[in-house]
């Protein structure tokens, strides 16, 4: 008899399919994964600590750099937390403009997730098609917010500048053609036998386990748990728009794929409704030029980012800088599921599992 023993394999930190600088230590028996150790922190920039030394306006650009694939959503979470803290009102125009922008960012983020996830599994066409549509959305961001990736879109009280002329019409036109594109992606993937072989039954996590691990977002809804913060704890005017929350009960990568595809369609609907409801008026808001929050006043605000529950916990410091800023990053919590999801699968499936979680390492390490 040949003697076999457990083998340790290092994956990352510079592995193309870890989507950033994530290191996984795989414990293997042959090609089967027994256990996974996650090593992270390579992208730690101390955002939370930095926020304690800058004032409330200066912190907005830092929040871009956490989850850079959906920067407007991070801006929204932080800015709404500051508004909660200071009790500032947002004008109706700003409210709906923000809603349209963040939902566009959800589409952009899901598109990039699909592009990279499919590329990892071997479907190269998706990369080109998805980035083509994402480029259009980034052009919208460039025109309305001033930057493509790190938008620094909002400020407490509203937006930094009004939407440019013709922007709304251009976005609506994109929204009318976009569902047809999603259908094209589905033609390529939904019934594709390689896609099915690689995703069905891979990365299974039951609804109970998902809740116990604190997962959120599509990870939860792909495991049959009907939980969306836009419905459960409506913020930013979401109670006034009509949309469905897709839930699939199969707990595997394929069902999370279906959740995200449907979410893109629903986001398109939300953008259309938000832009239709957006009134004329002032967009820049009424927050003071120097925000001062009394000592000990605290606020926690959660938003449903493309990756899940994104929370900002702020404590006022008496002066114009916060005493504490804690970010509850969805990628960080979702990353815990790597171990349980990989157990018993082959090495090749680890790539699928990392892809299906949709982590952004900037968000994990902050």
């Amino acid at each position, binding site marked *: 008899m040949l003697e076999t023993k457990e083998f340790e394999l290092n994956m990352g930190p510079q592995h193309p399919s870890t989507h950033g600088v994530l290191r996984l230590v795989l414990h293997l028996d042959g090609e089967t994964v027994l256990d996974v150790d996650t090593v992270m922190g390579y992208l730690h920039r101390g955002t939370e600590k930095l926020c304690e030394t800058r004032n409330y*306006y*200066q912190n907005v650009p830092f929040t871009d750099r956490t989850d850079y694939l959906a920067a407007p959503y991070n801006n929204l979470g932080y800015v709404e937390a500051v508004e909660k803290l200071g009790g500032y009102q947002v004008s109706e125009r700003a409210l709906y403009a923000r809603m349209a922008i963040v939902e566009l960012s959800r589409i952009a983020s899901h598109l990039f997730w699909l592009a990279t996830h499919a590329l990892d599994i071997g479907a190269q066409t998706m990369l080109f098609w998805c980035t083509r549509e994402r480029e259009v959305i980034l052009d919208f961001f460039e025109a309305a*917010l*001033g930057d493509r990736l790190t938008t620094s879109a909002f400020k407490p009280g509203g937006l930094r500048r009004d939407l440019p002329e013709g922007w709304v019409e251009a976005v609506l036109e994109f929204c009318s053609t976009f569902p047809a594109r999603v259908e094209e992606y589905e*033609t390529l993937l939904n019934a594709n036998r390689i896609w099915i072989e690689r995703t069905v039954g891979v990365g299974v996590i039951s609804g109970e386990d998902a809740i116990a691990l604190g997962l959120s977002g599509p990870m939860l809804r792909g495991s*049959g748990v009907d939980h969306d913060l836009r419905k459960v704890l409506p913020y930013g005017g979401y109670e006034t728009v009509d949309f469905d929350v897709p839930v699939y009960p199969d*707990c595997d990568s394929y069902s999370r794929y279906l959740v995200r595809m449907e979410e893109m369609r629903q986001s398109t609907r939300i953008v259309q409704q938000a832009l239709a409801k957006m009134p004329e008026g002032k967009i820049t808001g009424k927050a003071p030029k120097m925000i001062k929050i009394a000592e000990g006043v605290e606020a926690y605000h959660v938003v449903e980012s493309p990756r899940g529950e994104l929370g900002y916990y702020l404590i006022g410091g008496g002066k114009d800088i916060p005493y504490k800023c804690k970010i509850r990053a969805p990628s960080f919590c979702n990353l815990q599921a790597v171990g349980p999801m990989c157990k018993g699968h082959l090495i090749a499936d680890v790539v699928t599992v990392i892809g299906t979680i949709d982590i952004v390492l900037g968000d994990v390490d902050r």
Partner: protein
Amino acid sequence: MSTIVSSAPSSSAPEKTFLERFLLVELLKGMWLTLKYTFRPKVTVQYPLERESVHPNYRGILRVDESTCIACYLCEKICPDKCIHLEGERGYTKGKGGKYATYFYIDHARCLFCGLCEEVCPVDSIYHSNEYEAAVYNRVDAVHDLQILDSGHNIIHYER
């Protein structure tokens, strides 16, 4: 509050008949779709040869208008990265009175391109241009002094 619909793993992948499996229908459908794209116009831009123009709102490389800056230090104060350094002096130069900047440095390697400095400037002296080609060989070259900030940095355009 949240309800678990089901936690039993099943499969929602589409069922296929034997004939569909045998004839690779789904594969042919996909091939047909990609084939159609071959004859559509291309969306890519051949970068060094063709350059995309950006929207006027785009926050590109920073510029400072030397003649209007009143050296009020507001931009230096608001900058979250502390990458602006300036020094002002009172006096009469260039046909105007009051305060003017004697030196002004912006380190573009540290700049966040957040636009806060542009927003606070009372005389709209500092502004984001539409230039986005900022690559340099040396970190020192990313630090722009007043003369570069005023007249723009040197961009070598690729000619066909």
